[in-house]
């Protein structure tokens, strides 16, 4: 019976995928139901000691005291504040001044997404802001609904790779855990990567992707549309106050980004600073009367709960999967992938891309990454490169036309039926750009190491031979003994 337990865990993962897609129940509830089912089945079969579930409270308390996760409510609050304050509108109007020709509304929409992303950190908040500010102007420019939806979808995900985004922070944390497990397991003398390393590694790919999106947006909309209503740029010329607001906002973003990139302050502090400044600006300008503030705080609490519940549910499920030994099963498969570093990385990324068909980025970070990345990092020494590749795969998962989170959010917010083939056609150029970038980073790992100092390097030459590495890896795969539960680092 014991040898079947890892397979039970694997079938739970499949169950989660099917449950999320076919039931419409919140993903976190599906994860919890799968975890409870796995725990009960394991306990009834007698193959799994039920006392191992005693590790759950410690793990959940780790979440409650995790410094990095404090960023979640901060980003959510910033996102809701940006939605209520006139910042996005001022930024969009100023972007229009600089953007060229008939493509100006699209290019400005994409630029606005890139500017808002680091501030509100969450794709959902960006979709809301872009739908409110940019979508009516795109419609007035005669841009078709599927193209408008594609622009909003893509622009809202730009913040994913631009530090300090929420996805980037959470992935950074997951990578830290995964890398710690990997270097501990094989005794490599690497410096464990942290969120800051993932920030730095993502900068060049993020800049390339932003440039590609701006070019695509301009190219496909460079000619005037027959239905274009009027000189939008003249109608939406920013007032002096709006120009000042935009300049102050961009300066604040650059200061926050610069501060985080140089390590002057932590990402959480930057998020708190942004939230504090926005609150202060709202109070001073009189745009946050009590009823509005009440509504903002209510919304922020609920959205924080939605994200945190996913984290809680995924933590529970990954514990159950560890108890069942599923992580060891997957680790064995990854160790057995023929070929070298590249083939193992490609296959694991393909697995993550497959998961993205049924899970969104947060679920992938919390459920899939802890299972597949530690064994991958045992084979692949360049953790920064792996982190950026996973980040790009996650960003692609947001614009997955079937169930990508950004696509679903845009469809919901626009409240109009968008034909799938037309939306797919509009998204295709951006998807190609995403795929090209992924391939570029895959074959040119140095793109993730631009500007990296010698002291910053996490990668060190292997301290042990390949034979010794394989031998230690074999030791990690005990088929019958329950897996150790204390292999994850505690903060």
């Amino acid at each position, binding site marked *: 019976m014991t040898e079947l337990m890892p397979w039970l865990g694997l079938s739970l993962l499949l169950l989660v995928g099917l449950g*999320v897609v076919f039931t419409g129940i*919140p993903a*976190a509830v599906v994860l*919890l139901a799968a975890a409870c089912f796995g725990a009960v089945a394991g306990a009834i079969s007698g193959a799994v000691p039920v006392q191992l579930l005693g590790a759950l409270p410690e793990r959940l*308390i780790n979440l409650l*005291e995790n410094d990095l996760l404090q960023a979640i*409510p901060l980003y959510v609050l910033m996102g809701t504040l940006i939605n209520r304050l006139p910042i996005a509108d001022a930024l969009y109007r100023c972007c229009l001044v600089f953007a060229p020709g008939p493509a100006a509304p699209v290019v400005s929409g994409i630029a606005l997404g890139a500017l808002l992303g680091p501030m509100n950190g969450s794709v959902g908040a960006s979709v809301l802001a872009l739908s409110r500010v940019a979508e009516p102007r795109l419609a007035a420019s005669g841009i078709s609904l599927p193209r408008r939806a594609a622009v909003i979808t893509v622009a809202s995900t730009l913040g994913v790779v631009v530090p300090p985004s929420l996805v980037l922070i959470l992935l950074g944390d997951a990578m830290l855990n995964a890398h710690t497990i990997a270097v501990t397991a094989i005794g490599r003398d690497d410096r464990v990567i942290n969120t800051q390393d993932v920030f730095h590694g993502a900068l060049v790919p993020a800049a390339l992707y932003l440039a590609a999106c701006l070019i695509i947006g301009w190219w496909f909309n460079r000619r005037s549309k027959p239905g274009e209503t009027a000189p939008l740029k003249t109608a939406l010329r920013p007032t002096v106050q709006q120009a000042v607001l935009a300049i102050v906002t961009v300066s604040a973003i650059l200061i926050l980004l610069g501060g985080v990139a140089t390590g002057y302050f932590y990402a959480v502090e930057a998020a708190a600073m942004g*939230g504090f400044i926005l*609150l202060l600006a709202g109070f001073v300008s009189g745009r946050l009367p009590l009823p509005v503030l009440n509504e903002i705080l209510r919304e922020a609490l609920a959205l924080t709960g939605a994200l945190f*519940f996913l984290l809680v549910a995924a933590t529970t499920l990954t514990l159950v999967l560890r108890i069942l030994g599923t992580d060891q099963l997957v680790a064995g498969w990854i160790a057995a992938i023929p070929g070298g570093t590249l083939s193992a990385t490609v296959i694991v990324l393909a697995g993550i891309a497959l998961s993205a068909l049924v899970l969104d980025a947060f679920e992938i970070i919390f459920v899939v990454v802890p299972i597949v990345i530690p064994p991958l990092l045992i084979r692949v020494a360049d953790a920064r490169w792996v982190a950026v590749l996973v980040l790009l795969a996650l960003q692609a998962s947001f614009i997955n036309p079937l169930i990508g989170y950004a696509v679903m959010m845009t469809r919901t917010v626009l409240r109009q039926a968008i034909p799938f083939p037309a939306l797919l056609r509009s998204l295709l150029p951006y998807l190609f750009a995403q795929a090209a970038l992924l391939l570029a980073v895959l074959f040119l790992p140095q793109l993730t190491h631009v500007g990296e100092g010698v002291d910053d390097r996490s990668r060190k030459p292997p301290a042990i031979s390949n034979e010794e590495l394989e031998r230690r890896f074999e030791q990690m795969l005990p088929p019958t003994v329950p897996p150790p539960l204390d292999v994850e680092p505690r903060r």
Partner: protein
Amino acid sequence: MRFLDQFVGFLLAAAKWLALPIVTLLFLQWPLRTMLGLYSREANDLGQWLFALYVAVSITAATRARAHLAADTMARHYSHAAREWLARAGVVFGLIPWSIIVLVTSWSLVRNSTLLLERFPDTGNPGYFIIKLALLLMALLVLVQGLLELMPPVRRPSSQ
């Protein structure tokens, strides 16, 4: 049940204001650390247990506001009754068993910490036990809300 529903609503309405001191404290730790060199750890610890309480109640707030992330690509084609049935199944097989497991497994840990008024291990500042209490609060609220979700007359979306 109606009283319980109102009590949970009142608790959530009060808890949402915690966002303001959390933002302020987490912001203040930077100037306190770099400019004054004082009290930044205190600000961090205080922010930490406020954060723990905030997220502990936020899950139930999300449930009541129907804000949890869900893919309704397929489910939107289902009848209202089928979706209601699925939602109840989620409560019965997911929320309630999970909250009971957490309540049972964490009880002695939280109780000991609370009786000792456990302090933060790194700084010695008071209040660490509140983080552990927050776990119990989280599970308890999920359980209560789960039970409320199973009672049709009391269910009231967004009632915070």
